[in-house]
């Protein structure tokens, strides 16, 4: 299972992405578990709304943070997210 660059990416319907005030960070919640996210991972996942492909996510974030060369980092994270079932493509 690897990321298809041509398909939009959707955050999983059976997971929940949520800001935790007590922890001052975003977390992914799923049955009996929780993953704490750093700020950049949370920014990427928030754009996985079922309309954007990886190319669009990269360009949106490069624009937002006025930087370049984010593709490799974002791609690596999304591959992990896909393996963990946090996102899907179909």
């Amino acid at each position, binding site marked *: *299972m690897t990321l298809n660059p041509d398909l939009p990416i959707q955050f999983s*319907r*059976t997971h929940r992405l949520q800001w935790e005030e*007590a922890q001052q960070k975003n977390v992914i*919640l*799923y049955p*009996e578990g929780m993953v704490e996210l750093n700020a950049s991972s949370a920014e990427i996942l928030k754009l996985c709304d079922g309309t954007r492909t990886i190319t669009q996510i990269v360009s949106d974030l490069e624009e937002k943070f006025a930087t370049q060369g984010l593709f490799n980092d974002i791609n690596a994270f999304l591959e992990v997210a896909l393996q963990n079932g946090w996102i899907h493509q179909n």
Partner: protein
Amino acid sequence: MAGYTKTNITPPRWLLAELTYACPLQCPYCANPIDYAKHDSEISTEDWKRVLTQARKMGAVQLGLSGGEPLVRKDLTEIVKHARDLGYYSNLITSGYGLTEEKIVQLKEAGLDHIQVSIQASSQELNDHIAGTTSFEHKKQVAHLVKKHGYPMVLCVVIHRENIHQMADILAMAEALGADYLELANTQYYGWAHANRDLLLPTKEQFEEAEKIAQAFKETVAGKMKIYYVVPDFHEDRPKACMNGWGTTFLTIAPDGVALPCHSARDLPNLDCPNVNDVSISEIWNDSKAFNFFRGDDWMQEPCRSCDEKEKDFGGCRCQAYLLAGDMYATDPVCSKSPNHYVIDEAIESARNAALAENEKPLIFRNSKNSKLLSN
């Protein structure tokens, strides 16, 4: 007093709400205390809402709605709704008994995140025998309905000597039911399971065989189904990191409002566990004797005290030390470094002998009658 230094208290993350001890099933490995029939009062809907609000404010985010059978509580939907409004991720931990499609929809609308259905075995005959109730077909139906209504479906099967030979069939059943997660929970020997241990504890060979089958299966369903494996600690060399460390992560509230650092802690002597009707969750978590009792490592004896693994397993389980070594400060006897480790070998041997004996004694089923008999 042991460990009574308030250093580095982390906030609770997991709130286990044991809504009731009432249950239509009679599983002989139930995690509820043997004397549960004595604790038959239940706190009110408003009490539960207050508990949820206070714990959430401190940082609790995972909520287990358990029991007994939580569906017995008439106010379950109202509690779920309150939990969702507060931002909890709520897990209904149920036998599925009495769960209708209408209720599944109602709970979904109230904001329930997931339903964990327990099944006792892969065959009707054994399931219904262990549950002490005819429930197998209904449970499978419930599992289908849980999927149908978009919940992540977690199937939980408690593993012991009566069903461990069904491992391959249990895995096939989980796949056929479309489980997103399968919890293979090796029986933990407290409460009712402790009373029935000679009849429930599998041999090492049985564990190894079952684990091999489960491992091979895990690879074939990678990406489709996640498998949680609750380790059979009697056959390990090191104890489990019980509760992720005492008073670090988990907060259990029993049906009568007693706050516990773990759901078995009610059996430990002189903890003076506080009640949510007397004090706030914040006072319970930060200031109570019970929650500070085994925090840190000042309470440890040798060999834990000087052990280089003490920060990994925190000395293991206090309830198991008390139950098996008669001393709640002792190293968990599961650890091969424990001077009491021989009690584990004896337990395994005793269970093996019981398995080979021609006349096995009957299982003691979990019900109010047996609870009263055993706790008098």
